[in-house]
């Protein structure tokens, strides 16, 4: 296999490989289930899982569970951005502030967010607010440091050029540092969105009355393996969709980057 960093393949070639990859996955799954190699209690057949998804939609609360989880992620994520963006930029611009704030952020960052769940339940109950807070504690510290890094990586010559063109400090932040950092910040959003999914599901499994995580733990209590798989597949598909959202918007928003051509 040759490695070519800037290799270009056509859309059709790309899509063909996407379909092929999915087919291989489905084929493997089918070959161990339809043949009875693995008991359906542990791993149901693709058709069984598919019909559970349909049933959960028609008769269960799947649609509202999905929207609940998405809604929690959205709020947790927006809250994290609202805090991480100004802090990240400030940390990247000032060494003094970095010395002051970075250690506590690093401290929180090393604590698994799941460790906050018991405390969060006492403080915020088991409703939406507690899920939002868990997501926030899980991703805001990472996001802050990733944004700080993106800001620090601003090319010095660009700042100097702007200064000689009459830029003020505010201009430097708004017209040089942020536009320069935005593609990598956008990438951080994409990565942290994956983490947000992890944390919301964990929080919903530990204590919730709705959401996809709650659906899974309920299904486990009633030994409905097919429903657990249904939820897993839904989560996977939603994750894939958000990933694509960020990839496509990256190309639309940042046509000037090298990556937007790939």
């Amino acid at each position: 296999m040759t490695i070519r960093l800037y290799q270009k393949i056509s859309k059709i070639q790309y899509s063909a490989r996407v379909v092929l990859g999915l087919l291989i996955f489905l084929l493997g799954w089918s070959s161990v289930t339809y043949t009875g190699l693995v008991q359906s209690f542990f791993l149901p057949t693709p058709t069984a899982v598919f019909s559970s998804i349909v049933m959960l939609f028609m008769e269960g609360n799947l649609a509202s569970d999905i929207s609940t989880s998405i809604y929690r992620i959205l709020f947790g994520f927006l809250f994290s951005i609202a805090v991480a963006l100004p802090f990240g930029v400030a940390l990247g611009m000032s060494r003094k502030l970095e010395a002051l704030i970075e250690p506590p952020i690093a401290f929180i960052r090393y604590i698994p967010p799941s460790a906050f769940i018991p405390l969060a339940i006492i403080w915020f109950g088991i409703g939406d607010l507690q899920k939002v807070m868990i997501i926030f504690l899980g991703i805001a510290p990472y996001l802050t440091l990733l944004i700080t890094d993106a800001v620090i990586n601003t090319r010095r010559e660009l700042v100097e050029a702007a200064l000689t063109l009459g830029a003020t400090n505010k201009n430097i932040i708004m017209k040089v540092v942020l536009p320069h950092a935005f593609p990598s910040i956008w990438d951080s959003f994409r990565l942290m969105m994956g983490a947000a999914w992890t944390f919301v599901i964990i929080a919903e499994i530990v204590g919730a009355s709705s959401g996809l995580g709650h659906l899974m733990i309920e299904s486990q209590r009633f030994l409905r393996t097919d429903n657990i798989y249904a939820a897993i597949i839904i989560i996977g598909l939603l994750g894939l969709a958000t990933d694509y959202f960020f990839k496509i918007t990256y190309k639309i928003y940042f046509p000037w980057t090298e990556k937007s051509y790939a």
Partner: protein
Amino acid sequence: MLKVTNVSKVYTNESRRVKAIEDLALSIKEGEFVAMVGPSGCGKTTFLKVIAGLISASHGEVLFDGVKIIGPGKERGMVFQGFTLFPWLTVRENIGFGLEMQKLSRKKKNEITNHYLAITGLKDFSNAYPKSLSGGMQQRVAIARTLANNPKILLMDEPFGSLDSQTRSQMQEFLTKLWETEHKTILFITHDVREAIFLADKVYVLSERPMHIKKVFTVPFSRPRKRALKRSKEFFEFEGKVELALENNPQRSS
């Protein structure tokens, strides 16, 4: 218009003190095209950045129109050695960057931008991003971006240093033509003697670090200057004199 008196610059890092510039003095008149030639790493860029106000001198002062320079300002435009276009802006937006911050009317802004798009021959590329331009074109945009801001002096730090020799000589011709029409005061830094002579009215020859002025030459060639000048006997002889001054280094024992 620009008066530099006894400027020195000393860098200190953990282990040692490096003297980059020593007691440098010069003055530049309005409308003059001055070139400074010196070996690589002699402190030329540092000196230009002191004038731009991006770094401060350790001793001495720089007066611009009688006012002491304490920071960067748009009246002292700079064209850098590396590519410093803003990659997220199109050619047109790059040229308009300085104007954007001056709160000019849209009409005025477009007028100026169009003018510089035209004289730099970049009209067809006005909506292109820098990444799709060649090195020569990128530097032309950078020059246009600085000129659009209408600086009183243009500080140029080896702006053609990273270009191939053919593009380089095209750019030199472009710049002389530009100077002959716009009559900006230009301080041009280079390590290329031929470039300095071809472009400037006055050439300062610089020493190795710590940098100081070794000799000043007044260039005798009339304008407008064409590429053919570089092949003439007079040019060749003059180049020899400047080169000799550049190589001649009495302080050096090795």
